[in-house]
C-alpha cells in the first residue's frame, strides 16, 4: 500500500539555524502517526511545511501527497490536496454559529445569497455522520474547548480532507473531552482518514497511535510501530541531544547567608480571564547565590509563574510569596523596588521599545535612580547607561543606536541590563538565551555566574534541558501547573523529561523550609553594594 503522504529528505533552513535536516516521514491511509519531540525539535516547522505555510521552494526535499508531487504555494493548495491542520490556537470565529464556522468561506449560495437552509442541513448531516452531539445553530462562543476542537475537525472533514494534522489537540482538554476526541479519531481511522498526531502526552500517544516518529534537533531519530516500543525508549530518543555547548556554571559556593532570598509557599494562581487554575500549590525557596532552574513543556506554567511572581499576571487563589522577610508586593513597580526583577521571554514584545534608542531602553527601569524630583539627571543617566553598555559588551554603535535594529543577542543584553540596573536581589530569567547565537549565550551564562557570585539569586526558565542541567544548582520541573519533580545537580535529561511529561513526582531533595518554619534572622538590610557587583559584571 502506498502512503497517502510521504516526505523525503526535507531540509528547511532559517537564517543561522537548520530547523529540519533531511527529514523523511510517511503516512498511510487509515493510520494515526504520532509525532513527538522536545520543544524546538522541529515539529512545528514540519507542520508548516506540510500545510503549505512554508511554500514549495523555500525548502529542499520532496513532498508527495496521494502519490503526486505536491508543490504547495500556500495553505489553499494544501487544503485542496486534502490536508487540514488543526492548530492549538483554534481558528474559529467566536461570534458565529457552528454551521457558519464549518462553511466559512465556502457558504452554499443561491442567487448570490447564502443558502442558510442548505448550510444547516449539511452541517447536521456532517455532525450526525461523526456522531457529534452539537446543534448547528449554537454560537461557537458558548462551546467548551473540546467541542470547539470537534467543530474544527468537522470543518476540516467538510472540506473532504483526507489527512488531518492535529497539533497538541488535547493540551487544553479535560480528561473526558480527551476520551471523546480519541474515540472520534479512532472512528475516523476506520473511515480511512489518515492523521498526524502531535502530542507531549505519551500515554495518549500509546493509546491511539499506530506508529510513532521522534524528531530531535530537526532530524528524525526514531520511527517504530507503537506496539514495538515503550515509553522509556521514546524518552531516551527524545533527549539524546548532546551537551556540546560549554556551561561554565561554577559549583555553588557556600551559602552566602543563612536565609533564603525568595520563599514561595503553596502558591495557586488562576488565569484572570478564564478563571481556570494555572498554577497549583507551588512551593519552593531559593537562596542567595543560587541558580534555580525551572523546566517543563510548553504550557506547563513556567512563564505564568515568573509573571505572577513579578506581579504582572494572574489572580492569586492561595499561598504567599516573600522576598527576604517581607511579603512580595503585587505590582511590577513595587516588586522591582523590593528587589525582584524579571527578564521576560519575548524581548521584542515585552522587553524593548523598539523605536527608541539603546540608552532610552536601558534606563527605563532604573530611571528613579537617575533622577531627582522627577527631573532626569542627564550626566548620571549617561554615565550609568554607558557603564552597563560597556560591561555587558553590547555591540552597537552607541547608546544612541535604535534598539530595534540590533541583533537578538544584543537586544537581550539590553533587556538584561535594564533589569540589572535596578540592583535586584532576585532575578527571574525567562528563556534568556532563546534565539541568540552561541557567543552571546556564553556571555549570558558568564553573566549568570557573576551575578550569583555576588549573592544574587537567579531563577532560570529554559526549554533546553542541557542548558537547564548545565546552569542550575537545582531544577524544578513543572507539569500542568504543578511541580512534578525537584532535582539536585546531576539529574539526567531522561529524568527531567519524564517529570515534565507528567511522570510520577520524583522529589530528589528534602522538602524546602517553608516561610513558617524558617528562622528569620534576616534584618532586612541584606543588599550587596553595587561597588562589589559592578566590577565583576
Amino acid at each position, binding site marked *: 500500500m502506498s502512503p497517502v503522504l510521504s516526505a523525503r529528505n526535507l531540509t528547511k533552513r532559517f537564517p543561522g539555524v537548520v530547523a529540519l535536516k533531511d527529514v523523511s516521514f510517511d503516512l498511510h491511509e487509515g493510520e494515526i502517526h504520532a509525532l513527538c519531540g522536545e520543544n524546538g525539535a522541529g515539529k512545528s516547522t514540519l507542520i508548516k511545511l506540510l500545510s503549505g505555510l512554508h511554500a514549495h521552494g523555500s525548502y529542499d526535499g520532496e513532498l508527495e501527497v496521494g502519490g503526486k508531487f505536491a508543490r504547495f504555494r500556500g495553505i489553499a493548495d494544501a487544503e485542496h490536496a486534502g490536508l487540514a491542520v488543526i492548530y492549538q490556537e483554534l481558528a474559529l470565529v467566536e461570534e458565529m454559529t457552528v454551521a457558519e464556522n464549518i462553511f466559512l468561506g465556502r457558504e452554499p449560495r443561491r442567487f448570490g445569497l447564502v443558502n442558510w437552509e442548505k448550510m444547516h442541513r449539511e452541517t447536521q448531516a456532517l455532525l450526525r455522520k461523526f456522531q457529534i452531539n452539537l446543534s448547528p445553530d449554537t454560537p461557537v462562543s458558548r462551546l467548551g474547548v473540546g467541542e470547539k476542537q470537534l467543530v474544527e475537525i468537522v470543518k476540516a472533514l467538510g472540506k473532504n480532507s483526507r489527512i488531518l494534522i492535529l497539533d497538541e489537540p488535547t493540551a487544553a482538554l479535560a480528561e473526558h473531552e480527551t476520551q471523546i476526541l480519541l474515540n472520534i479519531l479512532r472512528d475516523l481511522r476506520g473511515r480511512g482518514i489518515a492523521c498526524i498526531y502531535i502530542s507531549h502526552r505519551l500515554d495518549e500517544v500509546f493509546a491511539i497511535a499506530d506508529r510513532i516518529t521522534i524528531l530531535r534537533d530537526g532530524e528524525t531519530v526514531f520511527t517504530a510501530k507503537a506496539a514495538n516500543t515503550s515509553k522509556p525508549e521514546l524518552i531516551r530518543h527524545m533527549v539524546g541531544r548532546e551537551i556540546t555547548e560549554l556551561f561554565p556554571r561554577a559549583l555553588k559556593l557556600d551559602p552566602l547567608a543563612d536565609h533564603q532570598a525568595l520563599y514561595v509557599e503553596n502558591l495557586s494562581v488562576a488565569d484572570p480571564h478564564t478563571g481556570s487554575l494555572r498554577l497549583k500549590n507551588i512551593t519552593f525557596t531559593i537562596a542567595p547565590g543560587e541558580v534555580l532552574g525551572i523546566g517543563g513543556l510548553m504550557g506547563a506554567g513556567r512563564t505564568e509563574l515568573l509573571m505572577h511572581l513579578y506581579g504582572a499576571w494572574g489572580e492569586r487563589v492561595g499561598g504567599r510569596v516573600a522576598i527576604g522577610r517581607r511579603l512580595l508586593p503585587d505590582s511590577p513597580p513595587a516588586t522591582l523596588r523590593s528587589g525582584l526583577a524579571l527578564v521576560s521571554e519575548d524581548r521584542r514584545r515585552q522587553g524593548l521599545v523598539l523605536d527608541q534608542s539603546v540608552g532610552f531602553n536601558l534606563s527605563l527601569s532604573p530611571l528613579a535612580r537617575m533622577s531627582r524630583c522627577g527631573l532626569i539627571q542627564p550626566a548620571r543617566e549617561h554615565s550609568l547607561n554607558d557603564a552597563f553598555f560597556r560591561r555587558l559588551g553590547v555591540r552597537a554603535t*552607541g547608546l544612541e543606536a535604535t534598539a530595534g535594529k540590533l541583533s537578538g543577542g544584543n537586544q537581550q543584553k539590553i533587556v538584561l541590563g535594564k533589569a540589572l540596573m535596578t540592583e535586584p536581589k532576585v532575578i527571574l530569567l525567562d528563556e534568556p538565551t532563546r534565539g541568540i547565537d552561541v557567543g552571546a549565550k556564553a556571555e549570558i551564562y558568564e553573566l549568570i555566574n557573576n551575578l550569583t557570585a555576588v549573592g544574587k539569586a537567579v531563577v532560570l526558565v529554559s526549554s533546553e534541558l542541557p542548558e537547564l542541567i548545565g546552569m542550575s544548582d537545582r531544577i524544578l520541573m513543572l507539569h500542568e501547573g504543578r511541580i512534578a519533580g525537584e532535582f539536585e545537580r546531576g539529574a539526567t535529561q531522561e529524568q527531567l523529561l519524564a517529570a515534565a511529561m507528567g511522570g510520577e513526582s520524583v522529589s530528589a531533595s528534602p522538602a524546602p523550609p517553608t516561610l513558617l518554619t524558617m528562622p528569620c534572622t534576616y534584618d532586612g538590610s541584606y543588599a550587596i553594594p553595587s561597588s562589589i557587583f559592578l566590577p565583576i559584571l
Partner: protein
Amino acid sequence: MNSKFSLRDLSLFFALLAIAAFFTFAVPGYGFVTPRNLTQLVVEVSITATLAVGMLLVILPGHIDLSAGSGVGLLGGLATVLVGGTGWLTKALTNFHAWLGATFGAKVAACFPPPPWPDPVAMLVCLVVAMVFWGLMGMLVVRERIQAFIVTLGGMLIFKGLFWRVIESHTIPVIGPTLGKSWPLAVGGQTFDVPQDWLHRLTTEYLDATTGLLLAAVISLLMLLGAVRGWARRRKHNIAGDDGELTFVKWLIVAQLLFLFVLVANQYQGVPMPAVICGAVAFAVHTLTRHTRFGRYLYAIGGNEEAAVISGIAVKKIVVRAFVLMGVIVAITGFMQTAYAGYTTPDIGNLMELDAVAACVIGGVSLRGGRGTVLGVLYGALIMATLAKGMSLTTFTSRYPELKYIARGAVLILAVWMDSRLSKRID
C-alpha cells in the same frame, strides 16, 4: 533625539514659509503682514497651539482626547458665569449659600460666598473642575479599559450638554463687577495697579515694548545657557550631536526670530498675553516630555505598553496624570478662547479638538503613540492657524468661508502622506 536636521523638519519649515509667502502676496494691500494682523494671528496660533501641546500629552501614550473642544467651551463658559455672576449656576450657588446660612449659620455661609467671584478664584475653581473631569476620563480609560476614543467621545457630548446648561444656551459677555477695577500693590515704596478683571483682559493685555524686549532677552540668554551646557556635556561624554558651531547657529536663528517677533508685535501693541501663556505651557510640556521621568514614561508607554509594564512603570498612574494635565490645559485654552471671543456662545470650542489633533499629526506626532515633540506640534499649530487666518483675508476665499475647512482638511491629509513617504525614504 536625532539632532541633525531631518528632511521632514525641513519640509515642515518650507511648507510654513510657502503658506506665509502665498498669503503675503494673495491678501490685498499686503494686509497679511501688517503688525495688527500678525498680532491677531499670534493670538489665534497661541490658542490653537496651547490645546495642541496638551493633546500631545495624551497622544504620546497612545490615547486621544476628543472632548477637548467641548471642554474649552465648558470651562470658558463656567469661568465667565462665575466671574459675571450670571445664569442658572449662579442662582443655584446662591441658593446653596442661603441654605448654608440657614443650616450652619452665617459664619459657615461666609466661607462660601455666591458668585460673582474674583477672577483668580473662579479660574482656579475651573481648573480643579477640569482636573476632576479629565482625571475621571483617564481612570475610565486605564481602569475599565474603555478606549480613549469612546470615553472622550462621550465626554465631548456630555461637556457640550453641561456647557449649554451652564450658559443656558445664551451669549454671555466676559465681564463682571471686577471690570476695570484694580488692586493696589505696594512694592518698595512704589504702588502698582494690579487689574482685577483677569479673564476679560486675558487676550487684550499686551506686554509693553520694554518688557517684551526684556523678556526676549532673558529667554534667549537662558536658551544660550542651555545650549552651551548641552554642548559641553556632549563633548565631555563624547555623545554624537551638533558640534559647537551648529549649536550656536541654531541658537542664533531662534533668538533672532524671537526678537523679530517682539519687534513686529511692538509696532502694534506689544507681545500679546496669549503668546506668553502659550510659551509658558509649551516650555512646561517640553520640559516634562524631554527631561522628566513622567515624560520618558509617556514615550515608553506609547512605544510599547507591554514592555513599559514589564519595565516596572506604573502605566495606569502615568496615563491618568497625562489626562489630568490635559484637563488643566483645556481649561487654560478655554479661558483664552472665550476671552478672545469676548462672549461665551454655544459654539465656542467647536471642532477645536480636531484642530489640535491635526496640529499634532502635521507636527509629526504618531497617533499610535510614542513619537512626537512639542516643537513639531508648535509647527503644526502654526501651519493650521496661518492657513485659517490667511484664508479669511484673501478676497476670493473670504467670500467662500467653507473653503477654509476644505483647505485645512487637504493640508492635513497631505502632511500625513508626506510624512509616511519621507520617513520611509529615510529608512
